[in-house]
């Protein structure tokens, strides 16, 4: 029972960052209809920027997180501007191949810039874990969860309460009509991609100090983000948030009770099972798939 409780706490902490990753990816897919293979690289980029600001420049820990998020946003906007802008309306396979190309370029550029040796970012918080009864939580992880939840809430507010969010939702529903109503579709696309990328970078900046930072860290992040998004249904933001926690839970349970070697396999098994029984995702209203 105590063990289960600890797993649930771990679930919450990982789930927060997974949800960030998933929301970013699902936003981009929902609005732009682009399967973003660079998502995991943006996650790795966020982590490296965290390392750059916090360790190399020696800036404040929390300020570094903010800067890393902004850096992710800028890179996202740059990718959209150079690669996707002229290919708007191209079929989904074309943009997918573009994104795979960009993924390879980004990952190897990271390897070239930072070298293959894993980097770590020291945490300014006390390393003694916080012990509540049978559960122990490190301060760093609790902080990660807190910031992740704040970012999720912020994203929710941007999408549901601002004019920009309204324009984004309109584009999501029908980009043609939205354009006729005076929404600048190109700007919305750039902003959507930047916002999604910023969320991925945020997840990287938050998890970088928890784990180590390595050039290939983005691969699994991409694939996990896909798993989360499929769980929730492509383009479904609430679904992605819940999907993040479900994936974290199944990984915890899989690693804790089956075998830690198969921790990373849980996401893919979930994808396969969900698509077998409910291809539109767990939380989707009926929609066309594909």
């Amino acid at each position, binding site marked *: 029972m105590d063990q289960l409780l600890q797993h649930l706490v771990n679930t919450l902490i990982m789930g927060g960052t997974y949800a960030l990753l998933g929301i970013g990816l699902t936003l981009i*897919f929902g609005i732009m209809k682009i*399967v973003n293979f660079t998502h995991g690289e943006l996650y790795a980029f966020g982590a490296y920027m965290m390392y750059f600001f916090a360790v190399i420049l020696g800036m404040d820990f929390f300020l570094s997180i903010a800067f890393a998020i902004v850096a992710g946003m800028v890179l996202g906007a740059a990718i959209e501007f150079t*690669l996707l802008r*002229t*290919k*708007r*309306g*191209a*079929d*989904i*396979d*074309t943009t*997918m*191949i*573009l994104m*795979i*190309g*960009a*993924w*390879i*370029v980004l*990952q*190897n*550029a990271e*390897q*070239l810039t930072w070298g293959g040796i894993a980097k770590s970012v020291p945490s300014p918080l006390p390393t003694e874990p916080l012990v509540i009864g049978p559960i122990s939580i490190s301060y760093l992880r609790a902080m990660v969860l807190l910031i992740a939840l704040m970012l999720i809430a912020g994203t929710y507010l941007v999408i549901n309460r601002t004019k920009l969010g309204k324009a984004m939702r309109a584009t999501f529903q029908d980009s043609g009509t939205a354009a006729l109503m005076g929404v600048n579709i190109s700007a919305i696309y750039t902003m959507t991609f930047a916002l999604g990328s910023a969320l991925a970078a945020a997840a990287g900046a938050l998890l970088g100090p928890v784990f180590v930072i390595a050039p290939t860290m983005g*691969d699994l992040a991409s*694939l996990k983000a*896909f*798993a989360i998004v*499929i769980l929730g249904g*492509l383009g479904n933001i609430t679904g992605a948030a819940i999907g993040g926690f479900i994936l974290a839970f199944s990984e915890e349970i899989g690693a804790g009770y089956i*075998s830690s*070697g*198969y921790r*990373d*396999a849980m*996401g*893919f*098994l979930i*994808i*396969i099972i969900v*698509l*077998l029984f409910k*291809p539109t995702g767990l939380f989707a209203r009926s929609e066309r*798939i*594909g």
Partner: protein
Amino acid sequence: MKRFLPYIAVAFFASVPLWLQDQYFLHTLVVSGIFMLAAMSLNLLLGYTGQLSLGHVAFFGIGAYVSALTSLGFSVSIFGFQITHEPWPPVVGVILGTLVAGICGYLIGKLAFRVRGAYFVIVSISFAEVVRLVALNWVELTNGPLALPGIPPLTIGFEWTGYATLWGKAQNYYVVLVAIIIAYVIIKRLVYSPFGRAMIALRENETLAMSVGISVTKYLVLAAIFAGAMAGTAGGLYAHYIQIIDPMVFMFLNTVTMVIMVITGGKGTLAGPLVGGLIFGLAPVVLRSYVGPELQWILYGLLMILIVFVLPDGIVPAIERWFGRSSGNADDQRPLTLETSKAPQS
């Protein structure tokens, strides 16, 4: 002229080991040939049915592992049952690898073709990742990250002729060349059969194809079986040539290599994967003296992006357009399509 081109190409490539002194270059040609075989199989799915399968390396790896394990022998316990397998000849291994990969193609086709587009792509990636993790973690069978060493090379021959073991690069080169020719002929016959026309119809317009009575799932699954089996053969040849395999064979970059070969050469053309395969198989040899592996991958990535912008149909269709216009060939490999170019709407 065009009719004789395949024969000239075959004659040229058959002569290569006779005059090529550089053993490293010959080795690169063998490995590229194996990847070309895999790329040809991927082209069936990506080029002819239009389904972007990004888990293709799974079939390749399954073929490699099945073939290696068949010829090495293994002993595992599953649910308390001890299963022991004595080593069989490598040729049987390759055949079994082909069959098992084909069966996996059937199962994954049945599963994955319930969905399309982005969903299909993600399912195919997931499948490859699950297979990779199994290869990594089922240590009793696959030796996990420690790899399976000492895979015997292919032997050919019959009881009455005696057996020849193919140790050398030149012998393996001819095996791969023959395999590519056979695969080419099979794919050509498939593509020009009613089955091939059904695949192309599905690629062009699935709803319309269904309305004229083409069974979507049946043809897509059939394509997945052929593609899986052919990739399995490539994997088997790879295992017996390299003689050691580890879970790295399931690297996503291997799938990417196949995809680049197909789209660079020209998806949905018979010669495309071969042209793309030659370019990307030999590029590392040319590049290795100038750039490190990371920069080489960066160039690959940039080339991929460039191709989408400059030659969205690939090299072979571009060349055909260049030469085909004057001769007015009836042998156009790209059948009539509803949308001849996939140019972006602007």
